[in-house]
């Protein structure tokens, strides 16, 4: 599974807790209230564990976590 699919599955299953949720790749996860502060760190922990990418503390910013697509493009640098 590619990164994008993994992230979408994780957000639906573990954060939204609804496998059938609608999740647009460009949807603003933060303003839509999908990612709160706990969920952001959950996601960081998941990325560390499943993708073996350690997101540096200073990179936990809006630009990188805005949407699925922005997160995937941010992760491309690793």
């Amino acid at each position, binding site marked *: 599974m590619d990164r994008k699919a993994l992230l979408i599955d994780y957000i639906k299953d573990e954060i939204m807790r609804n496998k059938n949720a609608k999740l647009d790749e460009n949807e603003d996860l933060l303003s839509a209230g999908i990612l709160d*502060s706990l969920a952001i760190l*959950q996601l*960081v922990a998941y990325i560390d564990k499943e993708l073996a990418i350690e997101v540096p503390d200073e990179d936990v910013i809006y630009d990188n976590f805005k949407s699925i697509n922005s997160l995937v493009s941010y992760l491309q640098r690793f």
Partner: protein
Amino acid sequence: MNDVIIIGGGPAGSALGAYLSKAGISNMILEKVIHPRPHVGESMVTSSTRVFKDIGFLETMEREGFIRKYGASWHAPNGHEFAIEFAEFPQEGIDQDYTYHVDRSKLDLLMLKHAEKLGTKVYQGVTVKQVLFDNDRATGVRVAIGDQEVDLPAKMVVDATGRQTLLGNQLKIKVKDPIFDQYAVHAWFTGVDRGSEHTADFIHIYFLKVERGWVWQIPINHEITSVGVVADKAVYRESHNDLEGYFNTHVITNPDLAHAMQNATRINEFKTEGDYSYSLSKFVGNSFICIGDAARFVDPIFSSGVSVALYGAKYAAERIRIAFETGDFSEEALKPFETRVRAGVGIWYEFIRLYYKLLPLFTHFIQSKEHRLEVLRLLQGEVYDRREVPVLDAMRKYIESVEQSEKHLLKKSLTNISID
């Protein structure tokens, strides 16, 4: 002349009585009420097991069938659950991977009886009016028996009066914590849905969305569950003393908690705990020692209270034994007790502050490969024999990086708690 008078027969006083009796130092516990009596503080950390073993009380804990606590679970407001299990982090000198949840009226009575069996003289229903002093040296206590007052001399006086802080008040050395002014509203319930079988007997902590707000769920026995809402006192004040309304208002804000409480029935009156955290400016003086909550109280988020009381008793007993050997009961001779206990409780306190400073960080750390075991070590009460606690430094560093970075997404989750 008595050797040691211990004021208060809670876990701190009874454990100390037991240690001293085992060491052949005669001692007496003066307890204000007649046990059993209700008390808050119903969950423990695993380090307590060491003290129970020391004083030969572990068999009683097992025999009495207290609920075994194998772990802890946190529930975020978004419905996510994070759990830890004590089995992941074995502790030296402890052969069991669980601690206990207790009905304190039962535990405290059993511990008092245990001290008595080991030789401690126990007098219940005796109110100590004050500790007697000759200049700054404690010389005994004044007790009220019926309408009479009687002075009892002693070589050593120990204040184990808990949150009553008899000596702290008498000597005016009690200092309110500048940061934590939390307030708890709690009661016992039946019919609480404790969740999946695997974690049903864990302590469950539910995060609330209000400032420093959380709820405990502690199994007392197979039917009864203790549930308490803790929040900043300012949050409580908004409720205008409507305990039931306050409690219910917060319970429904966390979906997991609302579910757990759906069919719950309250079986006793709501109780409240205020004036939350404090410390005495000193824990020892000439011929006296203050232990447990009588010396210091920190926020109970990590179930540290009984462990702090038991280790206070352990370390006080060591110091008192040395004092009787050398004949030196001076503040200076007793000071190593204070240094040790202060260091341990200081680690709890720092952990608590960092936790409240940035709540998401704690759940992040317990999920991280790098820090998980270090966090477990703290959660299991291993705070006394360590000079350095790298995980606290790592938490601090993370918080600083959030504070300093302009755009960090967790910036708005930072509370105004000082961590310096």
